[in-house]
Structure formats: structure tokens, C-alpha cells
């Protein structure tokens, strides 16, 4: 099956948009053949086999997405975006550019006014309310302020994500132990958030995001509260997770990190995608 919208689609029509590098325009079948081995690695390391997941489709497709709030403010305008499985994407742009709205659409906290947001083959706008929780389990989300429960230990914070989704107790312990080992927090499992450094707290949040074995990790300014050194450690962790086959979408203002890593960069401005560039820098480099 070919991509309904290639990653570069919708970019060329706008003269200010950067023409993406050819690698972004890979066909979906090519992506599929590339990610299959990676996924088996992920299954081995993260555990939890996938059933019914088709490799021949992107994790995320946004097609002509517009979001207008009831107050009339248009937060997103005709956004097209395709994120293949295994991709690592930086979402950049000034405050108010639409990054937060985009993330809200992905987790179905908001619904697009027009267009389609398709996550793992499911059109979120047409999704019945009762199915929303199941879609959210396909996404792991990490916030700038960690959003940990202060009265729960690291282990309990991670286990919480499984408990509240009805996971049987016998499956919770191995899954939590596995992701804590992955993020390097096995030794801190019994500690509470106030006993941890900022980096450790964010790693706990990442472990919680990973414990459902998600298709996509969304990190919203994950390094915003961390000093540069710890930020780099955290980015390394996200890269490692991405290498295991988990797709990562990271919204950030951290120009150093974006420019240094040369990953795919999607830049938003005034609700529009003004640049979608593989190997890009934080700022446009003409």
C-alpha cells in the first residue's frame, strides 16, 4: 500500500516551505521493510507482543488538519504530516505556533475542526468516546512537568498506568521491572519523586509512557525543566528508545539538541507547517 500522503505532500504548495530531502519521501513499503526488524527488537526488549498491528502503514497521518477553537482562534491551519513507524521527529516553533494543539489532537484531548488525524489506522475524529482510552494506550506521553504522583513511589507511578487500564496484576510486575531497567531506575524503584533529581523524575515519566508498549512516544518539552547535561542524558535515552523501534515525536525549544542531532524537524508557525526537513536544524538553514 502506498502512502496516502507522502511526508512532503502539502509542503510543496507553500513557497516558504523547505523542500524535504528525498529520504522523507520514502514509500510506505520501504518504511515497512526497514522497521520490521526494529520492531522485533522492541518486542524482545520491551516485551508484549503486538497483535493486529500492520507494519505497512505510518503511525501517524495528519491530512488537511485545521483546528479552530470556539473563540475563533485558528490554532492549526491545513496541516499535513506523516510520521512513519520508527521515525524520530522534532516539532519546533515559537510559543503559540500550534504545537500544543497538535499534541492535544494526537491524544484526542481536542478534535480537529476539519481534516483527518489518523493514528495507527484509526481516524480520531470519528472515534467513539468509549474507544478513546484504547487509542491513548497506543501513545506514551511525557510532559515538561513530569506529571508524577508525589505520594507514589517510582515503581507505583509506573505501575499506575497499567493498574488503571485493568492490566492483570501478574503482568504488571514484570512489565514495570522491565521498563525501569530500560530507563536505568531499578535502584530507585522504591523512592518517591521528591527524592529524585529532575532527570530521574523525567526518566520515571518516560518509563510510565513506555510501559504500555506504545506505538508512539510524544514528548512535550521534556527537557524544559532540566539543566543542559541532564537534558542530553534524557535525549540519549529517547534516542535509545527510538532505536528500539518506538516512534518519537518531541516538541522542544531546545535549539542545541535539535541542531546537533540532525533528525527530522517539523517547524510550525502560526498554525502552519512551514518546514518539514530530514536532518534539519532548529532554525532554517538556507
Amino acid at each position, binding site marked *: 500500500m502506498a502512502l496516502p500522503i507522502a511526508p512532503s505532500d502539502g509542503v510543496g504548495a507553500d513557497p516558504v516551505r523547505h523542500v524535504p530531502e528525498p529520504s522523507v519521501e520514502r514509500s510506505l513499503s520501504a518504511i515497512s521493510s526497514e522497521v520490521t526488524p526494529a520492531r522485533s527488537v522492541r518486542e524482545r526488549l520491551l516485551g508484549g507482543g503486538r497483535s493486529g498491528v500492520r507494519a505497512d502503514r505510518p503511525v501517524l497521518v495528519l491530512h488537511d488538519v485545521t483546528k479552530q477553537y470556539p473563540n475563533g482562534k485558528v490554532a492549526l491551519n491545513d496541516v499535513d504530516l506523516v510520521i512513519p513507524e520508527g521515525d524520530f521527529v522534532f516539532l519546533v516553533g515559537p510559543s503559540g505556533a500550534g504545537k500544543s494543539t497538535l499534541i492535544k489532537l494526537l*491524544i484526542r*484531548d481536542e478534535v480537529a475542526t476539519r481534516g483527518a488525524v489518523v493514528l495507527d489506522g484509526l481516524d480520531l475524529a470519528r472515534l467513539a468516546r*468509549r474507544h478513546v*482510552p*484504547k*487509542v*491513548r*494506550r497506543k501513545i506514551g*506521553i511525557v510532559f515538561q512537568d513530569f*506529571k508524577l*504522583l508525589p*505520594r507514589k513511589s517510582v515503581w507505583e507511578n509506573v505501575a*499506575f*498506568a497499567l*493498574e*488503571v*487500564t*485493568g492490566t*492483570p496484576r501478574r503482568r504488571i510486575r514484570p512489565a514495570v521491572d522491565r521498563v525501569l531497567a530500560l530507563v536505568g531506575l531499578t535502584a530507585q524503584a522504591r523512592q518517591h519523586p521528591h527524592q529524585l533529581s529532575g532527570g530521574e523524575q523525567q526518566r520515571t515519566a518516560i518509563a*510510565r509512557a513506555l510501559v*504500555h508498549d506504545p506505538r508512539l512516544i510524544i514528548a512535550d518539552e521534556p527537557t524544559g525543566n532540566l539543566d543542559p547535561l541532564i537534558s542530553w542524558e534524557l535525549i540519549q535515552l529517547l534516542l535509545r528508545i527510538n532505536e528500539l523501534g518506538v516512534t518519537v515525536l518531541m516538541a522542544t525549544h531546545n535549539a542545541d539538541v535539535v541542531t546537533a542531532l540532525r533528525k527530522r524537524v517539523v517547524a510550525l508557525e502560526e498554525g502552519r507547517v512551514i518546514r518539514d526537513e530530514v536532518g534539519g536544524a532548529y532554525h532554517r538553514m538556507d
Partner: protein
Amino acid sequence: MIGFVAFSIKRAWQGFWRNAVMSIAATATMVLMLLLLAGFWIINTGLLAGLEYTESKVNIVADLFDNVTDRQVQDLMARVEAMPEVATVHHVTREEALQRFKESRRAEREEDLTRFLDSNPFHASIEISLTDAEHYNVVQNRLCSEPGPTGKGCAEEPAIESVKNQRELVSSVLTVTRFLQTAGAVALLVIGMIVLFIIVNTIRLAVVARADEIEIMRLVGASDAFIRWPFVFEGAMVGLLGAGLALGILGTAADQLGAFMFDFFRVLPLEFGGLARDVTLLVLGAGLGLGVLGSWVSVRTYLIR
């Protein structure tokens, strides 16, 4: 299902103790509000019993001609008793009427003047108590609405000489009792609404304090049931604990309260047999119901987003 219920109860228990300050504040509010509700319920019950007693004292007294035969009296009483509005009928003989007068003089420490009488001046009568004081006019009219053919007595019942006209008095009593009954019901309703809003708001505060927790649950993909029910169970816990404490306080104070009520209503032969059961049911029902309602409504705010 059992796993889900066990999960919800466990989470409710943890939630209650891990947010002890808010939980205790909510429980304390629950106790105070339930005491207020129960106290007012008790007062209202006493008031209603008093009014009922007052209304029960409204009766119809029909004086009989002196020449009526026992047979006529029996027939009259049978007809009156057959009326649906009539509760009981009592025949007061002339001798009994005289005796009552003597007793009332004695009770008032007045001189017994009857010894100066040549004959018994009192009429025999029938005293009719009604099922409801409101039926006064209907029954009175049925007995004596027009004078008899000779200009004396009553057209409807020839044995009756006259019926004491207490319409205005009965009307006044009814006006006062109806007003007090309505006022009591309105006050109870207002207190009930105040209790409802204060408890629901207190529980809402306890839930809002944990908005982060609900937010995280939503983000990690918890279904509505997994988010809602632990809070509902927790609300039920607060309600039942508050009800238990309120009942404990009422139970401890019951003896003193009973003595006070007895003194207060000593003049009236009131029945308080069902009050303890009613108050227990009211407090438990209101505690549990308001706890569950408060949680349900509060969590719903987050779920409908």
C-alpha cells in the same frame, strides 16, 4: 468484574488515606451536615406529632333532646359511625356530663355549685372525633344544617337538638397547623438543599485536589469506569464513615435528647417509637447517597472533556 471492584475499593481506600487532610475535612463536613439534617428531622417530627395531636382534639359535640330513647341514640350513633370521615363516636349521658362538670370545677378549685340544683341541667350528647379535622364542616352539615320542622332541633337528625358551632375555632386551628406543617416541610427542604450543596462541594474540593491524578489516568488510557468508580467508592466511604460518626454522636446524646424531648412534649401523648429507625435510615441514606452523588458529579466534570 470482581477484579475491577477490588481495584476500585483498593484505590478508594488508598485515595482516602493518602489524601487524609481532604478526606477528614470532607468526613467532618459530612458529620456536621448529617447532624444538622437529623436534628432538624427530629424537631420536625416532634412538630408534626404535636400538630397531629392538636388536630385530633377537634371534635364535634351534638347535644341530644332529653326525650330521645336509647334506641334512637343507638341508631344515630350507628349512622354517624358509618360515615367515612368519622373516627370514633362516644355517647355522653346526662349524668356523665354532670360528673364532668363537677370534676372540672374541682380541678379548677372552684366551689361545686351543682348541689344547689334541683335537677340535672345538662343534655346528653354524642362526641364525634374525626379522621381529619378538615372534615369538620362536612360532618357537621350532615348532622345539622337546617332547623327541624318545629323550628327546633335539626332537620337531618331529629334526635339532635343542636351542634356546637366551632367552625371559626376549627378554621383557626387548621390555618395554624397547616402553616406550621408547610413551614416545617419548607425548612426541612431548605436544610436538605444546604446539606446537599455543602457536601457535594466539599467532595468536589477533595476531587479537584486530585485533578492531576485524574489527568494522568486519562492520559495513560484509563477508561471512564476505572477513573470514576474508585472516586465513587471513596465518596461512599466518606458518606458511610460520616453517617456512622453522626449516628454515634446521636446515640450518645440520645438519652439527654430523649429526656429533653419528653419534657418538651410531656403534655402531649406522642409516639416516638419509629423515630430512632427513621433517623438511622435518614442519616445512612443521606450520607451514602450524597457521598456517591458528590463524587459522581465531581469526576464527571473531568470525564466529559
